[in-house]
């Protein structure tokens, strides 16, 4: 009998209509993170160091990549995964260098995720690659949330974008292992305060080196190449 009104219903049956709370506490990106760990294991097994390059559209990712390939391809075995929303343009530019490249078209999606990179890895000759560049979709916001299984993450910020960008996009500058200011040949013409930008990055991320270069003039590119050389064959433990 129901104690409250004596209606003949058993209380248990009344209670089942009340919502029950189930604790979940599950990270929403767990599935991506698990796929990223698989990629990481797969890359390690082939002795590949993978670099995830993130930046706005037009920051100079492909330009820097082409300069890097030119400088390294005769002594380092390279590979490239090109992420883009639709076109093949960047992959075609890379393909002319003779370096193995796979294009991922996200179909409008604003970032690469780990399953996409997994599929791309199947299309690359992994035994012939030491250093793999993953050029993410041009975007300062979304890519940082998605671990791809890379060893290192690099953020590029070009001089025309402005020195205040860490205020607007703190997550990426907080997370990366290296920050590169690109297009420094434009510094004389624009109000980009390098020390202000460096201070904002440092405020979030004191451990990431900050390099300055111009892929166009070649100034500063050597420091980037040295950074890469120091990491080739040295995957970073637990890099996310």
């Amino acid at each position, binding site marked *: 009998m129901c104690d409250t009104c004596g209606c003949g219903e058993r209380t248990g049956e009344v209670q*089942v*209509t*009340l*919502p*029950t*709370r*189930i*604790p*979940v*506490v*599950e*990270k*929403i*990106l*767990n*599935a*991506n993170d698990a796929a990223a760990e698989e990629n990481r294991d797969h890359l390690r097994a082939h002795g590949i160091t993978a670099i995830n390059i993130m930046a706005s559209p037009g920051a100079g990712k492909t330009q820097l990549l082409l300069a890097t390939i030119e400088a390294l391809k005769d002594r380092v075995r390279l590979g490239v995964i090109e992420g883009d929303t639709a076109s093949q343009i960047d992959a075609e530019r890379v393909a002319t260098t003779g370096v193995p490249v796979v294009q991922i078209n996200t179909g*409008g*999606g*604003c*970032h690469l*995720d780990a399953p996409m990179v997994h599929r791309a890895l199947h299309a690359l000759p992994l035994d012939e690659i030491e250093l793999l560049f993953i050029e993410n979709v041009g975007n300062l*916001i*979304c890519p*940082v*949330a998605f671990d791809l299984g890379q060893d290192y993450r690099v953020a590029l910020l070009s001089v025309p974008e402005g020195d*205040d960008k860490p*205020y607007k996009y*703190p*997550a990426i500058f*907080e997370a990366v292992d290296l920050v590169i200011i690109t297009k420094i040949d434009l510094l004389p013409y624009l109000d980009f305060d390098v020390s202000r930008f460096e*201070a*904002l990055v*440092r*405020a*979030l991320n*004191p451990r990431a080196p900050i390099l300055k270069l111009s892929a166009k003039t070649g100034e500063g590119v050597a420091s980037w190449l040295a950074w890469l050389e120091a990491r080739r064959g040295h995957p970073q433990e637990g890099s996310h």
Partner: protein
Amino acid sequence: MAAMHELPVTQEILRIVTDYAQGARVTEIVLVIGDLTSFIDEAIQFYFDQIAPGTVAEGARLVFKRVPIRFRCRSCGTEFTPRQRDWRCPTCQTQGGEVLAGKEFYIESIGVIPQGGKN
């Protein structure tokens, strides 16, 4: 409309919720989202309204718990929530700090009406 990345993320939320609900009808989903992440409440709601119909979570209420960014000052250890374009520590004026909070992105809990319960 919304940033694209909320669609796959909302699909993932629905997948996890369906998994935990085990066939029960879901009435509420409590999400915890840090302000340092790029995920936007309105965009998740927008996609949820499109993909939830026909699933156990149809009509469920989304509850968004936003977590503000918290810095711990690297000079004096003060914990503070930075302002928009001013990351100075209120105690010693050092800029920025170690991020203590703001990166959260998880489902905290769901409310369900078990199978056999009234709709």
